[in-house]
């Protein structure tokens, strides 16, 4: 394999029900940086049904080209259908790098493709950069947490192309949208081998839509074991309501059924980087810290002054959240009335 034959940075622009997911824009922002270093192009791959008109939006977020595959077979994500199309595009276009969101879609499809392409794949990356390798050529260095977030590892594929990575949502910065930015939009017609379509979608059951995505929130009031129960979370919710924030949870309170999985922050939950993260009664296991330590400003309230959460907090309060949170809520109400 001659590595030089493989060019450009491809981004799988994940959409669900026709809505391009935030992680796609985040990946485009990062792909733009990488492609500029490599002096190559950013190519977005938009697969779905009835989605073609959204291609321009990907151009305005950093893509030089958008390859659109708009066909009824791709209406809902199914592993085999999507993998066949992606494989055909990658075989034909020979990208240098392919990035996917580390979502239930990206983490389903990317390894399937890696195995089909015999390509290297790095999961759940939090940092991507270009470095010169031993052969004088430029390689992608993908850094990711391992051992439950206890260790970081930088992974390279020195001999193979394409280099593929999945990237955690909420980690990369999207590019400021540039209205009117110019790019090429290319239609791609796949050849489906329908004999391999062995999985049928019977129905999709939507999760309760009442819950907004915590990864999108500017202010998060998060609770852990110290919150005790649902009534404890009601106190956090009251505080969140005052500042127009949302409530998030540690794994402990999800595992014991008090809070739903959608609001879990951490290694096995979501990565968040809000402007304010207030950790109430969260001790701060490394798996939790991995999901929130990039937040702009972190306040921690905990009874145990040795709790590891204080090691990442900008402001730490040793005290009882059950007293402080309601007092703070009342005080903020007064402040905001002024």
């Amino acid at each position, binding site marked *: 394999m001659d590595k030089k034959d493989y060019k450009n940075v491809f981004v799988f622009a994940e959409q669900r029900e026709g809505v391009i997911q935030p992680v796609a824009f985040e990946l485009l922002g990062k792909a733009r940086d990488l492609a500029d270093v490599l002096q190559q192009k950013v190519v977005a791959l938009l697969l779905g049904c009835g989605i073609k008109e959204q291609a321009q939006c990907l151009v305005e977020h950093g893509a030089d080209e958008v390859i659109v595959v708009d066909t009824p077979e791709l209406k809902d994500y199914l592993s085999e259908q999507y993998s066949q199309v992606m494989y055909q595009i990658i075989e034909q276009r020979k990208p240098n790098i392919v990035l996917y969101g580390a979502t239930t879609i990206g983490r389903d499809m990317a390894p*399937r493709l890696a195995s089909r392409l015999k390509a290297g794949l790095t999961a759940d990356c939090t940092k991507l950069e270009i470095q010169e390798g031993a052969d004088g050529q430029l390689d992608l260095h993908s850094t990711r947490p391992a051992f439950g977030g*206890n260790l970081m590892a930088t992974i390279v594929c020195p001999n193979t192309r394409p280099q593929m990575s999945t990237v955690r949502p909420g980690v990369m910065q999207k590019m400021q949208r540039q209205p009117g930015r110019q790019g090429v939009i290319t239609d791609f017609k796949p050849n489906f081998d329908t004999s391999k379509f062995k999985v049928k979608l019977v129905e999709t059951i939507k999760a309760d839509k009442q819950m907004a995505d915590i990864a999108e929130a500017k202010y998060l009031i998060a609770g852990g074991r110290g919150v005790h129960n649902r009534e404890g979370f009601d106190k956090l919710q009251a505080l969140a309501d005052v500042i127009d924030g949302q409530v998030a949870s540690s794994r402990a309170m999800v595992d014991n059924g008090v809070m739903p999985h959608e609001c879990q922050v951490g290694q096995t939950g979501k990565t968040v980087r809000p402007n304010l993260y207030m950790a109430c009664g969260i001790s701060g296991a490394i798996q939790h810290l991995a999901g929130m330590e990039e937040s702009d400003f972190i306040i921690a309230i905990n009874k145990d002054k040795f709790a590891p959460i204080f090691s990442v907090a900008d402001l730490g309060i040793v005290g009882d959240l059950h007293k402080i949170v309601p007092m703070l809520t009342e005080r903020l109400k007064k402040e905001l009335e002024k």
Partner: protein
Amino acid sequence: MKIIVCVKQVPDTTEIKIDPVKGTLIRDGVPSIMNPDDKGGLELALRLKDQHGAHVTVISMGPPQADVILREALAMGADRAILLSDRKFAGADTLATSYALSGLCRTLDYDLIIAGRQAIDGDTAQVGPELAEHLDLPQITYVADARRLDNGNLLVHKENEDSVQVLEVEGKCLLTVLASAFEPRYMSVAGIMKAYEREVEVWGADRIDVDESKLGLAGSPTKVFKSFPKALKAPGEVHEVSEEEAVELIVNKLKEKHII
């Protein structure tokens, strides 16, 4: 029904500490366990066995001492256990690992393969889908429920971030399973007795259907360039004060940061 369950022995990552001086993992005294998602997968296999009758083979790849988790699987109710253990597998990344496992699966007769979603040491979630591709099997990941229908197909619930997909799969397939959906059973006393009468078969690379040049380090496109402990940011201020003062401190900071 013949079911293969893939399991991995992992260090209990919640017990791992970092040596603050050397910056390396302290593994001494950290217990090795059966990976939780894999144990959930074994539980699903055993439930299908309870309901429909099945022969359950557990397989693993690892050093000889990984036989401990296979014995545990036998004691939970698995019928056969095979450990792939050979220096030729050393240094394998997920692609080379899944390739070796595919070589083992090809020598066995199966209707269904079950793996865990991901292992808690690597957290990659890659071996399952990669194995499915090597064997040209359909895959369903993030499985929270699976039932066999009267027509022999499986009805599977796949848990996504914002929805559950109900999927029907025809013929052989591979599922990757969430631990949270399948509370594993305990080993039974009779099971433990039987587990020690049974043999954990240890197989080398020569017994499986593979091209040996694609095993281990040589068959691995990814290399670890470096690993390092996570840099912790400098801690901020911590106050032990009255509740009133605490509220004052927080309000002042929120103002300073223009949050209020």
